[in-house]
């Protein structure tokens, strides 16, 4: 297990050293504050009411889970897999005493760590910002539940990104392709609504089932199992590709 831990530290450090990671976390920190400030300013100056302050944590969560976190995970997956292959630095990991399975697991966990960190920072920043202007609607426990629940579909999307990234030998082409697939997957259910039940990309607002009075336990369980099966399939398929890579 030491090798898994060692490579997890390395992968986390490599992601942290990227400007995009710091920018992504900074965005999670300042966007709720800026939103509240702008909203208050418009209220004071023009008397316009958005009513956003109370629901700020959930509104921010939906913005981040719809676009920002999937985009970050796509970029991180493209960098950690296709990008490292292109830069030939993947060898630096695979020539060390760490099995392919552990190297793969540590890369995936590092991406998950930053997705979780972003959700944590966003929750704190948006809750504090909402408190500053009257307190979040629905209470803290409800929004915390929504944030925790959102991690599951984000992981499923992240693992699909990791799988796709391994089909490419350049980070840029991997990122472009993932973004196009994501956009298409988001748009397609508008034409074929029945697809949304099966597409992993349709569950980015899964948290709404957990908040308020919540969905029936059966619905929650079914959706959770669907997401879990996506997580298992994407992880296993990604691992198989990683283990077979010949450098």
């Amino acid at each position: 297990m030491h090798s898994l831990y060692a490579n997890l530290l390395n992968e986390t450090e490599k992601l942290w050293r990227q400007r995009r990671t710091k920018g992504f976390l900074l965005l999670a920190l300042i966007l709720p504050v800026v939103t509240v400030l702008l909203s208050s300013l418009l209220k004071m100056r023009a008397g316009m009411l958005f009513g956003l302050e109370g629901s700020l944590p959930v509104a921010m969560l939906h913005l981040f889970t719809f676009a920002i976190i999937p985009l970050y995970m796509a970029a991180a997956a493209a960098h950690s897999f296709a990008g490292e292959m292109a830069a030939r630095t993947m060898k630096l990991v695979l020539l060390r005493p760490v099995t392919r399975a552990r190297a793969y697991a540590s890369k995936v966990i590092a991406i998950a760590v930053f997705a979780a960190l972003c959700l944590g920072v966003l929750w704190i920043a948006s809750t504090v910002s909402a408190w500053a202007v009257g307190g979040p609607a629905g209470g803290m426990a409800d929004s915390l539940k929504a944030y925790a629940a959102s991690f599951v579909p984000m992981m499923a999307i992240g693992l699909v990104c990791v799988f796709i990234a391994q089909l490419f030998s350049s980070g840029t082409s991997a990122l472009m392709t993932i973004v196009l697939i994501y956009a298409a997957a988001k748009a397609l259910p508008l034409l074929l609504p029945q697809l949304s039940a099966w597409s992993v990309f349709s569950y980015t607002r899964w948290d709404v089932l957990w908040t308020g009075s919540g969905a029936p336990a059966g619905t929650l369980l079914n959706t959770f199992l669907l997401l879990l099966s996506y997580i298992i399939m994407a992880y296993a398929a990604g691992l198989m590709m990683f283990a077979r890579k010949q450098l």
Partner: protein
Amino acid sequence: MNSVLEVEGITKLFRNHRGVKDVSFTASEGEVFGFIGPNGAGKTTVLKIITGLIRPDRGNVRIMGHDIVERFEQAVSHTGCIIETPEAYEYMSARDNLKLSARFYKDLPASRIDEVLEKVGLKPYRNERVRGFSLGMKQRLGLASALLSAPRLVLLDEPTNGLDIEGMADFRSTVRQLADQGITFLISSHLVHDLSLIADRVGVMREGHLISLGREDEWNGAGMSLEQYVTFKLLESKEGEHDAQLIRQSAE
């Protein structure tokens, strides 16, 4: 002497039908084993199989008695290597690159990083980003990275590429000094002169086959230089004239 590396009948064929066929040899403690042959002979493929970067179709590799497939972590924990070009994270300093590698070895003292940087002459540049390094400096960093874990087996692929004359001399003396301390080296090169000054034993490769294994006293005893010995072996093997010509050219 104890066998540090045992390679048994490894075969790997790629889609273009090139690769290595039935390669077997062993390397003992403190031995400098030279791997020589023209470009495309299969030297790098053998090194990649030994380090687990490529899985062979057939055959086994054991490092310090550990099978490279079944007990990968144990086997690789005894090795250090540069395969093809020495790579590094260019956005990090030399020291930070080694820090990342050092995390894999639990009992490595913190002073080891500066120790290996000093050994390869990079200590004054330890905090500079690798992006600004010359090829020779990257090669030295690769060597530092290979020696970091105090390995029992060091595999080096074309290690003198990019080194200046002084760098090559330093490299040879470092290898000899470490071999005398019991570290085994497997050095692949297409340059005969590189190996003639340090190798105790050479394996000659051609078209994926290990066509000959010879000791230093064999070519010295026959009054031949290593270059003449390799040329002789290549000529001796079927259709080896062209390869022998290439080796002669590289020696010139």
